[in-house]
């Protein structure tokens, strides 16, 4: 069963018009994205900065109201829910942010941080809440000795564990992880990834894992969706995507990852230039200005096709 369904989601931000009689221009941050995440599954959402992945996450969390489309959690349309009903469902979608320090309140102790969502979203009483806090801290591998510490007394890895503990405290149906490891050092990164993998295995967590770190995505995700300039360009199981990437953008991204082995010769598919502005999006395929394989046909609207079971690609040339 699908825990999360995103259906034709669109998030356009209008810009202030300089010339009053002309229609204002819009930033097309997310431009018609559909995806599903099954229970117990981890979907990786991959793309470079500015591709709209964080905006998509904010729409999924109902932190912003999309200009079009629906977000369904367990078949319930969150975008149509009145505010009060939405608040009651918030315990079911939680989030872990990129910066482990900035996302913690410096004036709340570890225990108070993890207790907060329980107090807000669950009927648990004080004693039950504190019991639950100890349980969750144990689950993320933080000893009881750290309960009363404050964020500045913790290391970066410990802080990210507190963030994860806070996110899973209410036993949410879905956890959105927005680049949870990119601010961490190599060895801390490995620990946090292993923790996330373990929570998934032991508690059947469902993750939407947003990252530009493809090696982490490969380790943690069951399926991967690749996003470019507001749209999905390719979607497949992790094994399929990494072994048989089809879209030129996916192939370019994969070829950019430095492989820690001097004998692996780089197969480079190099994109020229930088990501264009989401205000002036090219017609047809959005990658065509940077794509080394671009043909005249790429200016036409791009069909999304299934090239293998569960493997969809939006490219004229595949």
């Amino acid at each position, binding site marked *: 069963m699908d825990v999360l369904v995103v259906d034709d989601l669109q998030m356009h931000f209008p810009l202030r018009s300089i010339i009053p009689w002309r229609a204002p221009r819009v930033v097309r941050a997310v431009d018609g994205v559909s995806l599903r995440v099954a229970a117990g599954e981890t979907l990786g959402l991959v793309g470079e900065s500015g591709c709209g992945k964080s905006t998509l996450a904010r729409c999924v969390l109902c932190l912003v109201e999309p200009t079009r489309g629906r977000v369904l959690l367990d078949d319930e349309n969150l975008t149509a829910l009145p505010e009060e009903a939405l608040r009651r469902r918030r315990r079911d979608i939680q989030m872990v942010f990129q910066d482990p320090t900035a996302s913690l309140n410096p004036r709340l102790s570890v225990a108070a941080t993890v207790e907060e969502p329980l107090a807000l979203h669950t009927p648990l009483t004080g004693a039950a809440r504190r019991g639950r806090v100890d349980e969750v801290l144990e689950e993320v591998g933080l000893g009881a000795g750290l309960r009363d510490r404050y964020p500045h007394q913790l290391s970066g890895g410990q802080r990210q564990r507190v963030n994860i503990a806070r996110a899973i405290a209410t036993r949410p149906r879905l956890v959105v992880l927005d680049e949870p490891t990119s601010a961490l050092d190599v*060895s801390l990164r490995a620990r946090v*990834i292993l923790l996330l993998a373990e929570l998934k295995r032991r508690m059947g967590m469902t993750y939407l894992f947003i990252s530009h770190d493809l090696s982490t995505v490969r380790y943690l995700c069951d399926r991967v969706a690749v996003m470019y300039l507001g749209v999905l360009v390719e979607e497949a199981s992790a094994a399929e995507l990494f072994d048989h990437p089809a879209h030129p953008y996916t192939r370019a991204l994969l070829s950019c990852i430095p492989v*820690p082995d*001097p004998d692996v010769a780089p197969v480079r598919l190099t994109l020229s230039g930088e*990501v264009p502005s989401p205000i002036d999006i090219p017609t047809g395929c959005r990658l065509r200005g940077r794509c080394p394989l671009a043909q005249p046909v790429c200016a036409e609207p791009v069909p999304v096709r299934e090239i293998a079971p569960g493997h969809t690609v939006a490219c004229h040339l595949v």
Partner: protein
Amino acid sequence: MTDLLAVQGLTVHFATDEGVVQAVDGASLQIGAGEVVGLVGESGSGKSVTALAILRLLRPPARVLGGRIEFDGRDLLGCSEEEMRAVRGAQISMVFQSPRTSLNPVLPVGHQIERLLVQHGAVPPREARERAVEMLREVGIGEPERRARQYAHHLSGGMCQRVMIAMALATNPRLLIADEPTTGLDVSIAAQILDLLGDLGRRTGAAILFITHDLGVVARRCDRVVVMHAGQTVEWAPVRALFHAPAHPYTQALLRSIPRVVGTGEMEPIPGWVPSPLAPPPGCRFARRCPLARTECEAPVPVRAVGGEHRVACVAAEAS
């Protein structure tokens, strides 16, 4: 081969309220002319402090307690500030981690390159503008005339880093120190920047010291690698030897701790934590995290050759 840069036994301490932070403890490394050397390690291993010490950019409370830094046969630690100014930026230049904050926000980027060129006497003032634009073109910036008039906040992170590289190479330095030059950039932009650095390095004959925690970058871009842990240099090796036969237990743990895109090697975090630089253990600072630790590890560790140019500071490591 004579070394272009030879750092020997560098020791740097910081006096803080909580005590003396022993940031770098007897670090050594050599770079030959035109060579690309990677300096790798976790954060807090002393990589950046070593780089700043080479450029003599450390300010109190940092103090260089010992060691020699020889550049082109000259002891940099003995140079006067005046002499240092002729080396810094002209013969050794540096590309920093956060390009946007390293650029002056109130001067157009072209103007910053012009000032640098004039300051180092690279070109006469009236040719500076033209040369600056030319340099922007050389580092792959489109419409260089227009970009030269823009400010750092008009440019993307990748473009700022290109400007920094243009500035670093403007004076034809013999050594370029790149301190995590691609951190914070997207993968495709990072690859472009690394290509550019490698390319320009080859073309100008400048040696490059790559400071990074990304072993992938090291594998693809470097000739030799120096591994640092908690302020100590622990292994020196040609890039192939390091990846195929890592000798130091720390290097082995570091290699096992990275998730792989190719292959399915299990990922294991490095055991334990980086020891506090306030009270580091005596001898090998990795000993308390090391599966091979023994009593000798508490004494100063001798450096041994394990084959060719491959050296390691470990009593337990086996020769390959």
